[in-house]
C-alpha cells in the first residue's frame, strides 16, 4: 500500500476526571455516570456500552449521587442542590436548593414517587416527584451528624441511613427513627476516628448491609437492630455497595481498588434454609478508590478515582464465550476531542476548561519505514483559549483552513477568527452572533469555511454563514418528525452540497445544503453511529456503528453502495467485530479514492475498497505476515482491511492534505502517572 509519514502527537494532555457516582436504569439499560467535574455520561448497555450522551460539567456543580426515576435522571451534590437533567438537550433541566447543606446522597423509592436526600445537617428530606418538577415534601426526624448514605426498603416503608458511627432506620410514614445500629470504629490508631458509613443497602427481608470507613462490610437485622455478621475486607475504606436485583449478591468497592462480592448462600449443601452472607469473590480492576458500583444482571460495573469505567461480566451468567462476556474497560470518551485542520496542519484539543491550538512540526527528511525523521520545526502551541463562564466546553470545531474556531457550552457559543501569518497569530472573537445560536451539541465548518453548522435542540441544525466581517444566520434544518434526541455526529461533504447529522436514536439525516432541505434519511440501523464521513469525490457516506458494523451509503443514489452490500453479504471479520472500542473517526485519502481511514482506541485502519474483503478464514491482522512475504507473494495475501497497531491509546487519527497521517496518542500510563498515589500498591511477592 505504501509508506506514510506519521506525525506522532503526544502533547494532548487529556485527563479524564474521577468517577464519583453511577446509577443504572434497569428498565432502559442505561448507565448514568457522574464525574468529579460535574459532568454526567450516559452509556447504553444494550448497544455495546456506547457512550451516547455527555452532559458537560459546571465549575460550581459537584455531583455526589445519581438517581433514576423512570427515564428521568436526578443528581444531588455538595452544592446543596438537586438537579434534574434534560437528556434531550444535554443540560440540567433545573436545580433546586434543598436547604439542608451539602447533599451526600439521593435515592428514590421503588415506586418512583418520592426522592429522599441525605444532608450534611442531619436531615433526610423527602421530595415528591411530579410530572415536570419535584416538590419538597417533609423531613424525617433530624439526627445529630450528617447523613452520608441512604437506602430505601423495597416496600417503601423504611429508610436506612448511614451516618457517622451509626446507621439509623427510619419509619417513612411517621418519620421517626426506629433503630439505631452502632458501627464499631477501626482498630489501633483509627480508634479515635469516627467511622463513616459510606454506603448502606436495605434488603427486602429487612437486612441492612453497610460498608464503612473502617474497612468492614456488616450485615444487620433491620427488625431487631442486631449485628449479624462482620466481614473485615480491607484496611482502608469500603466506599460503595450495590445489591443485585434478586438480592442474592452484594458487591462492595474499596479504597484498594478491589470489588468484593458477597453472596447469600447456604454454607453447606444440606442446610439450604440457613443461608448467610458469604464473601465469595474479589475483583481487582482498579488501582484506586472504587467510588461507584452497580451490580447489573450479568456484570459488575465499577468506577472510581482511576477514571476508567470497568464492566466485569459475571461469567456464570453466560453460557458461552461471547462479545458480552469479555471484560470492558472504557478509558476514552466515544467522541472526538481533537479537531484537525487538514489544510493548515493545525490541531485543536478540547479540554473541559480550555482549548489548545497547536501547529504540527515539520521535517524535510526522508526515511525508510521505522525511521524517526529529524525535525526541522518543532510543534508549537499557538493558542490557549480559556472558556468564559462556569459551564464546561461541550464541543468545539476548527475549520480545515485553520481560519475559524468555534466552541460551545450549554449556555453559549463562541466563534473566533484566526489569522496566522508566519509566526504571528491573531485571534478575533466574532462579536455579534445570531440569537438563534445559543448552544450547540456539535459544531462543524463546511470544507470551504464559508458556513458553520451547529446541532441544536430537537435534532435541528443551524446553518450560519461566515464572512470576514460578520456571521449570519441562514436557516434551521429541522426534522419534521421523528426523534428529538440530540445530534452527536455531524459531517459535511467537501463539495459543500451535503450535510449529514446523526442523533442518539440512531437516525442519520442527510440535508441538501443548496436547497436547505432534507435530502434523505439513511435506513435506521439498530446500533448508534459512532463515526461517519462523506467521501470527497463520490459523496458516499461511510458510517460505523457502535456494534462495529460498517456501511457505505450513496447519498446521491439514496441507497447502500455495492461495496457495502458485498461487505454485509459476506459479513465483517470476527476479529473486527470483537474489538471493544468504537470507531470514533472516519476520514478519506484525497489522493486515493479507494482508501478510507478510521480508528478506534487501539488501532487505525485503512480500508482499501479495491482489495478483496477478508473472509472468516483469512488472517485479519496480516501486516506482519505481509511484511515477511516477498514482493511476488504479497498480492495474493492482501485484503481490504489494513490495520496498524503501532500506535496505541489513540484519541485521533487523521490524514492531512499532504498525505501525512496525524496520530494523537494519549498513553494510559501518562494518565495513571497523574493520579494521586494509590493507598495500596502491589509489591513483589506480597
Amino acid at each position, binding site marked *: 500500500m505504501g*509508506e*506514510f509519514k506519521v506525525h506522532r502527537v503526544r502533547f494532548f494532555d487529556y485527563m479524564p476526571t474521577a468517577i464519583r457516582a453511577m446509577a443504572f436504569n434497569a428498565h432502559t439499560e442505561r448507565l448514568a455516570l457522574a464525574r468529579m467535574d460535574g459532568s454526567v455520561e450516559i452509556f447504553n448497555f444494550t448497544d455495546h456500552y456506547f457512550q451516547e450522551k455527555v452532559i458537560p460539567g459546571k465549575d460550581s456543580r459537584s455531583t455526589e449521587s445519581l438517581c433514576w426515576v423512570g427515564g428521568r435522571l436526578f443528581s444531588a451534590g455538595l452544592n446543596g442542590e438537586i438537579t434534574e437533567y434534560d437528556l434531550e438537550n444535554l443540560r440540567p433541566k433545573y436545580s433546586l436548593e434543598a436547604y439542608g447543606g451539602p447533599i451526600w446522597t439521593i435515592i428514590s423509592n421503588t415506586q418512583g414517587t418520592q426522592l429522599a436526600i441525605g444532608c450534611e445537617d442531619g436531615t433526610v428530606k423527602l421530595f415528591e416527584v411530579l410530572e415536570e418538577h419535584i416538590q419538597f415534601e417533609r423531613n424525617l426526624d433530624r439526627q445529630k451528624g450528617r447523613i452520608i448514605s441512604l437506602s430505601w426498603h423495597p416496600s417503601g416503608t423504611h429508610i436506612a441511613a448511614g451516618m457517622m458511627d451509626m446507621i439509623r432506620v427510619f419509619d417513612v410514614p411517621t418519620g421517626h427513627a426506629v433503630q439505631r445500629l452502632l458501627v464499631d470504629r477501626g482498630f489501633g490508631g483509627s480508634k479515635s476516628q469516627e467511622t463513616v458509613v459510606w454506603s448502606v443497602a436495605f434488603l427486602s427481608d429487612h437486612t441492612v448491609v453497610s460498608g464503612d470507613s473502617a474497612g468492614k462490610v456488616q450485615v444487620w437485622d433491620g427488625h431487631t437492630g442486631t449485628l449479624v455478621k462482620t466481614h473485615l475486607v480491607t484496611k482502608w475504606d469500603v466506599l460503595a455497595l450495590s445489591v443485585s436485583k434478586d438480592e442474592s449478591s452484594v458487591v462492595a468497592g474499596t479504597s484498594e481498588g478491589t470489588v468484593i462480592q458477597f453472596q447469600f448462600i447456604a454454607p453447606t449443601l444440606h442446610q439450604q434454609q440457613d443461608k448467610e452472607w458469604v464473601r465469595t469473590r474479589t475483583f481487582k480492576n482498579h488501582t484506586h478508590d472504587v467510588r461507584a458500583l452497580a451490580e447489573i444482571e450479568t456484570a459488575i460495573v465499577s468506577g472510581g478515582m482511576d477514571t476508567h469505567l470497568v464492566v466485569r461480566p459475571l461469567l456464570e451468567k453466560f453460557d458461552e464465550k461471547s462479545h458480552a462476556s469479555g471484560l470492558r474497560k472504557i478509558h476514552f470518551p466515544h467522541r472526538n476531542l481533537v479537531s484537525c485542520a487538514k489544510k493548515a496542519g493545525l490541531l485543536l484539543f478540547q479540554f473541559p476548561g480550555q482549548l489548545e491550538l497547536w501547529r504540527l512540526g515539520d521535517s524535510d527528511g526522508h526515511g525508510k*519505514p521505522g525511521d524517526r525523521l529529524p525535525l526541522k520545526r518543532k510543534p508549537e502551541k499557538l493558542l490557549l483559549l480559556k472558556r468564559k463562564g462556569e459551564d464546561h466546553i461541550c464541543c468545539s470545531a476548527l475549520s480545515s483552513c485553520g481560519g475559524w474556531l468555534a466552541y460551545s457550552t450549554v449556555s453559549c457559543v463562541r466563534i473566533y477568527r484566526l489569522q496566522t501569518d508566519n509566526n504571528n497569530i491573531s485571534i478575533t472573537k466574532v462579536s455579534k452572533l445570531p440569537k438563534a445560536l445559543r448552544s450547540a451539541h456539535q459544531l462543524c465548518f463546511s470544507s470551504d469555511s464559508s458556513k458553520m453548522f451547529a446541532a441544536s435542540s430537537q435534532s435541528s441544525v443551524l446553518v450560519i454563514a461566515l464572512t470576514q466581517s460578520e456571521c449570519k444566520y441562514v436557516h434551521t434544518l429541522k426534522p419534521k418528525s421523528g426523534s428529538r434526541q440530540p445530534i452527536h455526529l455531524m459531517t459535511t461533504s467537501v463539495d459543500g452540497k451535503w450535510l449529514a447529522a446523526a442523533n442518539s436514536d440512531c437516525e442519520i439525516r442527510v440535508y441538501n445544503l443548496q436547497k436547505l432541505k432534507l435530502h434523505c434519511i439513511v435506513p435506521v440501523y439498530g446500533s448508534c453511529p459512532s463515526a461517519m464521513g462523506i467521501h470527497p469525490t463520490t459523496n458516499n457516506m461511510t458510517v460505523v456503528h457502535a456494534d462495529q458494523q460498517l456501511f457505505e451509503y450513496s447519498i446521491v443514489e439514496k441507497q447502500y453502495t455495492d461495496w457495502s452490500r458485498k461487505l454485509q453479504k459476506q459479513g465483517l471479520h470476527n476479529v473486527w467485530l470483537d474489538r471493544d472500542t468504537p470507531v470514533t473517526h472516519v476520514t478519506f485519502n484525497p489522493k486515493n479514492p479507494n482508501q478510507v481511514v478510521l480508528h478506534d482506541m487501539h488501532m487505525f485502519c485503512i480500508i482499501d475498497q479495491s482489495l478483496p474483503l477478508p473472509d472468516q478464514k483469512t488472517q485479519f491482522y496480516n501486516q506482519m505476515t505481509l511484511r515477511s512475504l516477498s514482493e511476488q507473494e504479497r498480492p495474493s495475501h492482501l485484503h481490504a482491511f489494513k490495520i496498524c497497531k503501532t500506535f496505541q491509546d489513540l484519541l485521533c487519527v487523521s490524514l492531512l492534505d499532504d498525505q*501525512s497521517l496525524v496520530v494523537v496518542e494519549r498513553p494510559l500510563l501518562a494518565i495513571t502517572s497523574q493520579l494521586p498515589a494509590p493507598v495500596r500498591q502491589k509489591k513483589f511477592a506480597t
Partner: protein
Amino acid sequence: MATLCEGFTLCGLVQTQNASDSPIQGIELDEDSDHAVVTDSTRSVTLYKVSDQKPLGSWTVKQGQLLTCPAVFNFQTKEYVVVSDNKVIRVWKDEDLNLDKAFKATVTADVWRVHSAPGGEPVVLFQRGAVRFLDSLLSAPQQPIEDVLSEEEVIRWSASIVAEEQHFVLFTTEQNGECCLYVQRLNPNTLQKYRLEREDSGASPLSFSASLRDKHLNLLYLYPNGCVYQSVVAARGYVGLEGVQDLPRSLRLRLPVGEGELGAASAVALDEAHVAVVGVPHPSARTGKDFLCIWNTNFQTLQAGILRNWSFVWCYLGKLFVPHGKALSIIPYECQKSSLASALGKLRHTGIAVSKSSVAVPSWNTLLHGDQPQGPTKIVETRKSVRNVKLGVNCVQPQPHQTGPVDEVQREVEVLVSRGDAQDLQLSVGQLACHLVARSQAETAFYTPVALAQLVQTQFLCHSVCPGLLLLSLEHKDYFLCQLCLQLFPDIPEVVTCACLKTFISNEVLQTPYSDNFLLPHLKDLDTQQVILFLQYLQFVYLKYSQDVYTQTAGLRSPTMTQIIDWVCLLLDAHFTVLVMAPDAKGLLSNLQSFVKSQVKLFSELGKIESSLQELHKMKLSKDISQYSIEVIELF
C-alpha cells in the same frame, strides 16, 4: 592425535611363494575380545589369546583340502564356521578337536565368504553374489543358488555390518576395469548396486574398508595412486531405487606414493578422522613403501608411522593386526577424538599467530573439499608437494649440500630461498632441510645454523617434515634456531617441547601448541629443581602481566594469561607430590595457593554480580518516545 604403541608378535607365519600374497586369509574375533581367530592361507585355523600371545586351539583340514574363506565365529550358536574347497561348509565348536569330524554341508555353489558379526546371524556370500543366512542354508544345503553377478564380474572384497536392526552385506566387484559396490540389506532383502567412479588411471582400488557411522555406511578405498576416497551410503532409504546408482566419492587423503604406483597396500578406517595405511612410503623417508602410518584425514597430517615390511592390515578393538614377513604382529593404537585442538595441539594465541606467522591453521572446508588448497594452507601444500614430487631433487643433479663445505651449502640455500617460485620452493626447502639435518647428524663437524635458520624462516617447514631439526639445534645449543622453530612450527611434539624446556625456559616454549595428555608424561621427566625454577618463572611472568594486563601489545610475542595458567596447572599436576615434599618449593606453593584463593574469591564475587550485569545487558533501551515525532511507517 593418534599414536602407535609398541607392537608384539602374535605368531609366526608360513612364508608363501608369492610375497605379495598375504600368508593369512583373515583374522576374526570371537566372543572374547582377547581372542583372535586366524585363518592361514592354506589349511588351518588357529585361535589365539592375544594378550598371552599363545594359541588356544588349532584346527586343520586334511591334506588336499583347502580353506577358501576365513573362519568366523557364530556369535549366536558359539560355533566356528569355515568353508573348505569353496563348497563345503564346516561348523565346529570350541571343544571339537578334529575338524574332519565336525558338521559339514556341501552347497551347490561356490562360497566367497562367510560373514559374522556380533548381534547378527552369520551370512554366506556366494561367489556369484547370492546371499543366504547360514542357518537357512544349512537346513537345505542343496537349495539352488541364483547368480546375481554377470558372467565376468568377480567379487573383490566383502564385509558385513550389523546396525541396530539392519544387517548389511557389502561387496565390491570388478568387471572390465569397472568397480561396483553392492549393498545387500537383509530382512527385508534388497540389493542395491552402485557404480564406483573411475579413477583416471583406470586402476581398481587396492583395498576397501567399511564402517557404519551416523546411520551411514562409509566405504573407504585406496587406489594405487595413493588416493583414499570415501563414499557414503545411507543405511536407511534408497530401498525403492532401481538400477545402478553412481556412487559419489570424496577424496579423504592423498598419500605419497613415491616412485611408481602402489603395489600392495591397504587402508583401514580407524575412526572418523583416522586411517591406518600399510604399504605406502613414509613422507619423510627417502625410500621404501613398507610403513604403517596413521593419517588424520581431517588435517591430512601424518600422526604416526613405523617401518616394517607389510602390506595387509586388519583392525579390531584398538589393535592393528599386521602380517609381515614371518610373523603376525599386533600393534595397539590410540586415536583421540579428533578436534582441531587435539590434532594440532593447543593453538597459538591467535593474535600472535596471525601477526607473526603465516602458518595459519587451514580451514576444514578447504581441506576436506578443496583438492588444491590455496593461500594460507601452506603446510598442507608443503607436505603434498614433498610427497608428490617423489623426492626427486637430489636424484636429478648432484648438489653441494650432499658433500660440500658449509659456506657452499650456505650459498645454495641462499640461492634457493631467493627463488620466487613458491611451489617449487616448498618442495625443495623440505628436502634440503632434511638432507642438511641428516648430514649434520652424520658428520658431527657439519652444522649450518644460518642456512637452517633461513630455511625455517621461509615458513615452509614444519616439524613433521623435518623432525630432526629442532633436536639438532638443541644438540648444538643453537637457541636462536630453537626459538625460531618454536615460533614457526605448528606441530612440535610434546616430547620435544619438554626437551626444549629442560634446556632453556622461554616464552616461546609456553606458546608452543600442545595437548595436555601427551605433554603430561613428558613433563614428569623434568627434575624438581627444573620444575621449581619453571614455576617461579611462570609466577613471575604471571604477576608481571597481571599488573599491567592492558599494556600487553599485540605485536609482542608474549604468552597469554591463559597459557601461563595452563602451564602452571600442568606442572603442578605432573609434580605435585614431589613439590609438596620439597622444602624449597614450600614458599612457592603457598604463594600459589594464596593466589588461587584470592582468584576463587574474586570469581565468586564476580559470579554474584554476573546475573545483574547480564540483566543490564539484556535491558533494552526503552524507546524514548517524546511528546512529538515524525515517523515513517509502511503498510502493506
